[in-house]
């Protein structure tokens, strides 16, 4: 028994739908505001790892549709002519059904596999790209057809699914800072410093991408003459403030923010995560994941009262 079969049959149940009222769907619902970078439709690819609990950076696979290998000739013929799974098609129009299954009968006994198209529905071009491909193509053994999925594409899919934690900025002082006072900066709940996703086409191949967090960078939201950035000691996540601690990560504002739009400086902390493909001697280049967060920092003058003795 080919190890491919169970997974692929499961996939085919989705892709060869027998629509019922409120039943199977070929086109999955798009979740609005979804932070996932990719949503696979009609695909047998399994995504595991850090696909949740963070934010994707909007990376898109270069081509949002591709063919995936599926059943062999006889398995496919059996599946497509099984009255239990094909009931809806037969009931709708048995003549159309007969024409449809002819392509599978024609390949009976031949070596090779049927490849079927899948796509990323997060990409606005994904569905049309899928419609551009054939529903079924028969491919000889050990051959990848044009638009057939490659390792590189699988790695791209893993890259698109990768999420990293969104930085949450902590400051001290927290609500309002003052001229010349060191404002400590660090990240709240930063999570692990490595994130990875593995995309697997069961029984065929898998690709893992690993992102590793680099040191944060702080942008004070104003010019050098108004703010001095100290970030030698920031590391990946900064250091939470403790009383008497040395100031190695943060911003010292030199002028009040009263003349700024909204009377605040907009402080931004960025986190960069270079991405590598695991176990590749010749790595391909992926752009790093970059995420950032911004906070308003009102900076006031320190008032001193001078009183006569």
């Amino acid at each position, binding site marked *: 028994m080919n190890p491919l079969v169970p997974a692929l049959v499961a996939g085919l149940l989705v892709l060869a739908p027998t629509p019922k*009222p409120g039943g199977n769907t070929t086109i999955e619902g798009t979740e609005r505001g979804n932070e996932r970078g990719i949503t696979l439709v009609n695909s047998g690819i399994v995504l595991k790892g850090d696909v949740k609990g963070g934010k994707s950076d909007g990376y898109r696979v270069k081509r949002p549709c591709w063919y995936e290998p599926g059943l062999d000739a006889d398995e496919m013929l059996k599946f497509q002519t099984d009255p239990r799974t094909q009931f809806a098609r037969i009931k709708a*129009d048995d003549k159309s059904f007969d*024409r449809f299954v002819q392509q599978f009968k024609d390949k009976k006994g031949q070596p090779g596999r049927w490849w079927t198209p899948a796509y990323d529905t997060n990409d606005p071009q994904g569905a049309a790209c*899928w419609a551009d491909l054939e529903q079924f193509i028969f491919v000889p053994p050990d051959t990848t057809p044009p638009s057939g999925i490659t390792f590189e594409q699988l790695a791209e899919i893993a890259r698109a699914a990768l999420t990293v934690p969104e930085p949450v900025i902590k400051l001290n002082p927290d609500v309002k800072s003052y001229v010349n006072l060191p404002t400590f900066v660090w990240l709240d709940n930063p999570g692990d410093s490595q994130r990875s996703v593995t995309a697997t086409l069961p029984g065929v191949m898998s690709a893992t991408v690993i992102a590793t967090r680099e040191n944060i960078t702080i942008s004070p939201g104003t010019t050098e003459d108004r703010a001095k950035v100290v970030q030698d000691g920031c590391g990946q996540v900064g250091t939470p403030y403790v009383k008497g601690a040395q100031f190695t990560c943060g911003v010292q504002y030199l002028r009040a923010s009263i003349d700024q739009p909204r009377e605040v400086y907009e402080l931004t902390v960025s986190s960069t995560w270079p991405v590598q493909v695991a176990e590749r001697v010749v790595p391909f280049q992926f752009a790093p994941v970059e995420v950032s967060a911004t906070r308003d920092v009102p900076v006031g003058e320190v008032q001193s009262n001078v009183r006569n003795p």
Partner: protein
Amino acid sequence: MRREQSSPERHAPGRSRTAEHSCATERPCTGGKDAGVMRLALSGAVSLALLAAGCAAQAEQPYTPREASSPAKSVARAAPTTGPQTVAVGDGMRVRIEWPADPDPLLKVLTDYYVGSRRAVVTGADRYARNMEIDAEVQATEWVRAFTDTDQSLRGVARLYDLHVSAARSKGAQIDMCVDESRLRLISTRTGKAVTSQPEWTRKPYHQAALAHRGDDGVWRIRALVSDDERCER
């Protein structure tokens, strides 16, 4: 996006006969009247024209002109014309199609489906397969039967607007439109009257899209009908 479901409560309509063995497989279509001309004739509410001369009304032209045997002519034949057009669908139902300026011939794949599927309901047909790949045919046919099996039909005027091709490749496309069925009523064919409880689609315009594939024969067929919660304003 989600697949459409089959029930008169659902707006999803979709049926049409697979064109695989119709004249659509051969280009040019025999009897090849200019579809635009045919449509003009139809606008006078000649309801049986589409049925009888389905060939002329289908979007049988390839999207890529260079693939066509006679590009200029084929495009001219398939291309809708700018402005509103009213198509009689049968007894008591009309469809007003608001063509955009310089309409893409691909738009007809979706409007033909809309008109054809409604015609199937209104005429009490039991399927819709024209220019549909098998799973879209199943979707459309189940939708039609959800009416005809329960002795229900449609009456009134539907309006198709904001037609656009949102993505097009050489053999695949997504075609979108808004549908306003506020002047359409679900009726009982037994009483001939509107049913008391009218479905949601009579109250709110909705978005309808089709994913279409151009076969080796040059014919665009709908592979999947989809709708989502994309807003459609009146």
